[in-house]
């Protein structure tokens, strides 16, 4: 279950960037071909954030569909697995999207003056 280690990474990166402020929301971008299960990240998130600046923060995950371009005919096709066959018969596909694994943005509490 690599999602646990990945969630610990997320907590570390967000903590570093929050600079002591309480974190309200974390927005992740996870590609559907990245071998990361959003549900597993959600499961780990509650556990990993306990006692940190992220405790209680909302976790939002944007799932990016897999898109590839065929090297043979140039067609773009959607994939739900990291491989596939183009309608022209070629399996030479270059992935365009779907492998993302990124923290898009975070929202931290601002002190009202």
């Amino acid at each position, binding site marked *: 279950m690599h999602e646990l280690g990945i969630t610990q*990474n997320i907590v570390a*990166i967000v903590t570093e960037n929050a600079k002591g402020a309480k974190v309200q929301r974390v927005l*992740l971008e996870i590609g559907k071909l990245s071998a*990361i299960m959003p549900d597993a990240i959600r499961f780990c998130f509650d556990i990993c954030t306990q006692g940190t600046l992220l405790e209680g923060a909302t976790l939002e995950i944007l799932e990016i569909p897999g898109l590839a371009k065929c090297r043979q005919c140039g067609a773009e096709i959607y994939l739900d697995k990291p*491989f596939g066959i183009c309608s022209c018969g070629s399996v030479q596909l270059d992935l365009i999207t779907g492998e993302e694994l990124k923290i*898009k943005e*975070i929202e931290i*509490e*601002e002190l009202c003056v």
Partner: protein
Amino acid sequence: MCVTCGCSDSDTKITNLEIDEAEHHHTHTLPDGTIITHSHSHDTHIEAPQIHAKIHNTTISLEQDILAKNNLLAAQNRGWFKGRNILALNLMSSPGSGKTTLLTRTINDLKHQLSISVIEGDQETANDAKKIKETGSKVIQINTGTGCHLDASMIERSLQQLNPPLNSVVMIENVGNLVCPALFDLGELAKVVILSVTEGEDKPIKYPHMFRASNIMILTKIDLLPYVDFDVQKCIDYAMQINPQIQIFQVSATTGTGLEKWYAWLIENLKICQR
């Protein structure tokens, strides 16, 4: 009533998001007395909370790759290997595919031609490291405990202790697992996936991430083909479908069949590292 923020407004309109006229204006009084007037659309429930958030909180755009730290360390490892003319390989497979047997045979057969050091990854025990040590090779055991894969920082730390000679080969035997190790760059020159004929020919399509990430597939235990139901051609077709560039070796570490091609690849690629 607005579902998003609870404000009341009678002139709610549902409009096309493509056209920028979907907004309505209203006022909020914050707990500290600050009055804020802002506008947002009532049918964009995904965007609207962000508009509110920007008022009450600060949104920081990070765009940070979660694996960036690992990838940076991996790049450093790659530089470390390059500076020493070392060919580093990341060997991955499910448990029991015969990685250690292939490794000990390779070390023994090539002893007089090249030097091979080994980083052994397992959750527990130093059993494999002991087997490697018997060949006379330098070996470091990493026990990951609950961890299901090796990462670049583990390799960085063990390289200091392993201290492999210049112009040599470092074999990193990853934790037996066909899922997680595929995601973590260790700084190796190539990823090698090992699959035995006792496992089933459909492993490549069952674990596509692993076979896609690998540069080489070694099909092992081919001496057992007469006794098992394993379609070699089908397995190769599956692997090529997922990764048309994958290079395939068919070997038996017990009888020695096919090993000469694997050894030739090793020797050739070590030479390339030394250029």
